């Protein structure tokens, strides 16, 4: 099974290709150059692993939550590759990739309970909690999706901290992701919260993504058609929010859009 994975949900942009159990990876801390960096990374991982795109069996893409523009670049690339190569696509949550990264990076006794936090900008985060239980989910660790508690709405840092406090009442909690890095001052001083890996596992990694995707495919996860893959924005578009909030007292035509 040869799996090509695309990662663009945060400032880290890259691709990874898994072939015969070996992962070739190329990633960059790209700022906002997702489009510029992703396609060359795909070409490079193909060259590194000696694989042509025609030999790839499945595609995986991080569908978010994360940066809107980054997600669009990753998903549009996955859709076009899927369509052109007639391949199915597996969409994977950025929070699950972070949690899988934490399970890979931390010894089992530290990683039983993980909170993955993505910086949602505008002073908010997206987060999910993972509890692998006493046995740590077996020798390979759990598939994060099997042990996840989701908070689909964006959280203020105080809400995140309060949630982490609740979770920490049951034992130490490992907090990872770029949202944890951004709000480390609010989180680090709290008893029971371990931010030792926040910097190491700040962004979803292409290599972790491709391993998690391959694991899911091996377990029978269905691939989606290119048409059906969409980003998980978790927030409506701005103008839409404003318009709907104002709707009740609306009497005049709406103000100009952002223009062209």
């Amino acid at each position, binding site marked *: 099974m040869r799996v090509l994975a695309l990662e663009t949900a945060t400032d880290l942009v890259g691709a990874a290709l898994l072939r015969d159990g070996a992962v070739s990876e190329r990633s960059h801390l790209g700022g906002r*150059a*997702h*489009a*510029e*960096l*992703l*396609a*060359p990374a*795909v*070409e490079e991982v*193909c060259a590194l692993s000696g694989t*042509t*795109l025609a030999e790839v069996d499945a595609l995986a893409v991080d569908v978010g939550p994360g940066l*809107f*523009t980054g997600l*669009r*670049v*990753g*998903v*549009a*690339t*996955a*859709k*076009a*590759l899927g*369509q*052109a*190569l*007639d391949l199915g696509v597996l969409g994977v949550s950025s929070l699950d990739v972070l949690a899988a990264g934490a399970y890979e990076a931390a010894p089992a006794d530290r990683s039983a309970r993980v909170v993955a936090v993505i910086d949602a900008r505008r002073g908010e985060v997206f987060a999910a909690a993972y509890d692998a239980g006493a046995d740590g989910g077996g020798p390979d660790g759990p598939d994060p999706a099997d042990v996840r508690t989701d908070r689909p709405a964006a959280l203020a840092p105080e809400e995140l901290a309060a949630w982490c406090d609740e979770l920490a009442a049951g034992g130490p909690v490992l907090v990872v992701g770029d949202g944890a890095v951004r709000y480390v001052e609010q989180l680090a001083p709290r008893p029971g919260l371990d931010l030792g890996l926040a910097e190491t596992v700040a962004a979803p990694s292409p290599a972790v993504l491709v391993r998690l995707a391959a694991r899911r495919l091996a377990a029978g996860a269905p691939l989606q058609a*290119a*048409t059906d893959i*969409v*980003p998980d*924005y978790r927030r409506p*578009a*701005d*103008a*839409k929010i404003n*318009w709907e909030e104002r709707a009740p007292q609306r009497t005049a*035509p*709406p*103000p*100009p*859009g*952002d*223009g*062209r």
Partner: protein
Amino acid sequence: MPVADRPIARVLGIETSCDETAASVVEGGTTIVSSVVSSQIDLHARYGGVVPELAGRAHVELLTPVLADALEQASSDHSGRGIDGIAVTHGPGLIGSLLVGVAEAKALSMAWGVPLVGVNHLEAHLFASLLEQPDLGWPLVVLLVSGGHTLLIEVTAPGEYRIMGGTIDDAAGEAFDKVARFIGLGYPGGPAIDRISAEGDPAAYAFPRSLPGDGYDFSFSGLKTSVVNRVRKEPDASTADVAASFQEAVVDVLVTRARAAAGAVGARAICLAGGVAANSLLRARIEAACAEDSIGAFLPSRALCTDNAAMVAAAGYWRLTRGDRSGLDLGADPNLRLVSTV
């Protein structure tokens, strides 16, 4: 991936710079084999204009079916059979929209092993005319008028451009949209004003004609304010009269400037481009002015005036056959300028 070095015949064009998701296959730079345009007008209508984040999201959902249609109508399929190159608009436009098309085009170029070229959206509009009039004579003056642009461009040959003037405030299409919204005609404003003006008196109101500076620049914000003030003072004014008088003023200014520009450079023709070039009064007046001045008038069909991917493929064909190539690190530039490249 090695890029096939075969002769370029069929080019796939991709256009996502604003609110149209489009793909097209063009043969030999001039024959449209397929052209699919999926408009998002309904999506943006309630906001009275294009909402960038909504546009970006819609492009992601539409790009796969639009491409599939364009390929199928060209007797190709997902494998890109018969496609020799890919052209994509990489600016100017909305960054979140442009990037969707650029990402798609690069992925297809890698998967199919065919060359890629990034195309300037404005240059693509200039090539729209060549699709219908492959024997255009030079030099030309192009009046490019749309929701985002109002430009007078001297074209001495394909690829040789000189910007003679542009708007110092609103684009012409933007003025149409804003006035239409204000007088309750909805979005998009251009077609709505065009339609209702047929029933109005263009001389009912003497709205100002602004001709800023000595050159070929435009200004529409004073005109827009004047319409707003008039309607506020006279709430019972006939919408058709206001629309017709406004349209008359815009067209008057556009034609005056275009004609002067064509005269100054000895142009053999004036060519219209952009969404506002679909306006029936503008078309009629340009045609009449050119006839009077004994020069040609090139008026692309309405479908080629508004955003489409056939014009992108046509411009891309010309670039690819000259040997222009873009790398996989191609990005999008929302403020990309039109510069001569020959």
